[in-house]
């Protein structure tokens, strides 16, 4: 082992023990009058939410207020050609008589969480009745008690049409608190002209010919499982901190030697377009869209050592007073014909049974697109990671941020 990596390892050990030490017992904490006063100020300012008792759900006023508010990611719902209206959502308003407010205000799980965590922890209304975070964030929100339990009886379409594979996720067995919105894959992409040999595994990103033309994602929950998979580790199984450290060493090395140009969020797409980046870790739907808009230049694959499958899920936050309305909307999107319309636009995996049949009427070609209606073999190429413990969540995030220089 090189002296550098020894040093890195020591640093990491210190970091891990620091994380453990930070857990001082509650009783040991000095909480003088000043502290209490400060606390009042803090909660008044909404800067910080406290842990402790889980918040209780708000009373449902759906019967009195015919409204539902939905927070989603950008470009994640069908849009008309003028780019102003969402046809399926308008249709929902007409048939249900509910006024739907649609906001594209989630652009990162972390940033969104940082913004609303304080309110959620106090059980306050965050201004949304449906939120759409990713799996791991959903897991965290359920653990923290920040979402409401759903009434299956109100969602017959969901019960009938959700893909069986999705019904029993580890963190929400039986789907009592979440409903899948869209599913996607994290895999590899390359520019077919600039790098005709293509990629088979994450390892191939370290090809010297690609030096400085590679990006990986700044989402730890994407990049690190991909790195672990590349080490031959079953990420759904019982991997250890050492496995994680080995993978992060590889990442660290390739950042330091300039192989990886940048660690990026969603803006990796612009780098692919500008040509600065030739090969990258990427989300499946993005690449379908890129190819559609910029000519068929890129190819997306799941690595031979497997890629990631993930979902963004609709949930009702604890402070929402419109749970029944929210359930109505979720159920609406599990109508196969509606789901097909959305899938034709967003190009992600459709979680609704029968949508492929409905798609035939919209665009025959898309029925055979594995990125929208994946075959079993394609699905077998993907997996997802086991649950992280609280300590792991903090420690691993810490290490990852350290390596990517922030």
């Amino acid at each position: 082992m090189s002296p550098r990596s020894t040093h890195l390892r020591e640093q990491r050990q210190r970091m891990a023990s620091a994380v453990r030490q930070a857990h001082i017992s509650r009783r040991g904490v000095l909480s003088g009058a000043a502290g209490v006063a400060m606390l009042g100020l803090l909660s008044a300012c909404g800067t910080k939410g406290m842990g402790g008792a889980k918040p209780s759900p708000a009373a449902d006023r759906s019967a009195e207020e015919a409204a539902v508010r939905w927070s989603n990611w950008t470009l994640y719902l069908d849009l008309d050609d003028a780019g102003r209206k969402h046809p399926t959502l308008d249709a929902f308003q007409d048939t249900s008589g509910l006024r739907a407010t649609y906001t594209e205000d989630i652009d990162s799980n972390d940033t969104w969480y940082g913004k609303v965590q304080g309110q959620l922890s106090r059980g306050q209304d965050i201004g949304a009745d449906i939120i759409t975070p990713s799996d791991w964030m959903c897991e965290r929100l359920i653990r923290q008690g920040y979402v409401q339990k759903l009434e299956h009886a109100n969602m017959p379409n969901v019960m009938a049409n959700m893909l069986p594979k999705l019904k029993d996720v580890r963190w929400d067995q039986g789907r009592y608190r979440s409903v899948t919105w869209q599913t996607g894959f994290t895999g590899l992409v390359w520019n077919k002209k600039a790098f005709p040999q293509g990629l088979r595994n994450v390892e191939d990103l370290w090809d010297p010919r690609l030096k400085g033309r590679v990006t990986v994602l700044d989402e730890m929950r994407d990049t690190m499982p991909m790195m672990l998979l590349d080490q031959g580790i079953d990420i759904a199984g019982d991997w250890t901190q050492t496995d994680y450290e080995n993978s992060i060493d590889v990442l660290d090395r390739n950042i330091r030697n300039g192989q990886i140009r940048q660690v990026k969020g969603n803006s990796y797409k612009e780098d692919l377009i500008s040509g600065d980046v030739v090969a990258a870790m990427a989300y499946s739907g993005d690449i379908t869209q890129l190819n559609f808009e910029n000519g068929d230049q890129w190819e997306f694959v799941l690595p031979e050592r497997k890629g990631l499958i993930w979902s963004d899920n609709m949930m009702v936050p604890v402070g929402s007073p419109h749970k029944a309305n929210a359930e109505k909307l979720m159920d609406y999107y599990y109508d196969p014909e509606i789901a097909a319309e959305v899938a034709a636009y967003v190009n992600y995996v459709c979680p609704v049974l029968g949508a492929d049949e409905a798609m035939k009427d919209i665009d025959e070609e898309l029925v055979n697109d594995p990125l929208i209606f994946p075959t079993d073999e394609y699905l077998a190429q993907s997996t997802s990671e086991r649950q992280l413990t609280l300590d792991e969540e903090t420690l691993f995030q810490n290490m990852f941020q350290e390596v990517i220089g922030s």
Partner: protein
Amino acid sequence: MSAPAKEARAVEKVDLRSPEEIRAEKKKGRMGAWLILPGMLYMALFFAAPVVVLLSMSLFVKPEGAELGEFVPGWNFGTYAEVWNRYWPVLLRSFVFALIATVAALIIAFPMAYLVAVRLRGKPLLKGILLVLLIAPFFSSFILRTQAWKQILADEGWIVQTLKAVAILPADGSLTATPFAVICGLTYNFLPFMMLPIYASLERLDTRLLEASGDLYASPAQTFMKVTLPQSMPGVFAGTLLTFIPAAGDYVNAAILGNNRDTSMIGQVIDSRFFKVIDYPGAAALSFILMVCILILVLIYIRRFGTKDLF
């Protein structure tokens, strides 16, 4: 009359105002107090209180078995030592980048401000057009402008291609994802903050002083150093502060134009501590350290170059 004599006269002056006048004066004084009240309240609410919150948050403690983001009030000064030891190089880099960007912005902004404010006097149309052209790009979003720089400096862009053609840049070289790109972005994005104060002070520059300087044997270069520059110092001073302070805390440029090796700035770290690692005390402590460092640097700067005794 000499100054002391004048003062003596002022002291001797008898208050000849009627009681009504005195009451009116006092009322005016109270009016003044009422007028500054909203400002004071605003500052208390939106500056003083957040700083207190920040300070107290930085001392919070994570209890045993705490949920993510759960911290309780405490006096954990260790957070400061921890983040300082871990991030002082990033802090230092932030200040170095901000300093280079400030100097570069000064070098770029001064001639532009001079052209518009001094050379184009008496040509209001041309002056107006140029001013608008210089300022208009900054009506667009900060993020978009920075993204545009990515395109400008891209590997396939004409700048990189040209530099490669004349062998200034090696064949496998690039400009994006380098410290150079980050500093370029910082310089560009904060240019108006440098230019406008300098423009404002040059606008007031009495060109007759330049003639007088030339008349007294000073060459144009000497006139610039001895008259123009000192006369524009208040603007240069304000401009450098207005550029340096936000540039030191900026993270957008480093995030978009930087790489993840040698361009990280303290703003990125605070962002990741807060949002990704969910280490609120660490983020607060870093913010506070940043604030104190900037305060110290600015105080030194004011001490050394303050405009107080310029006029």
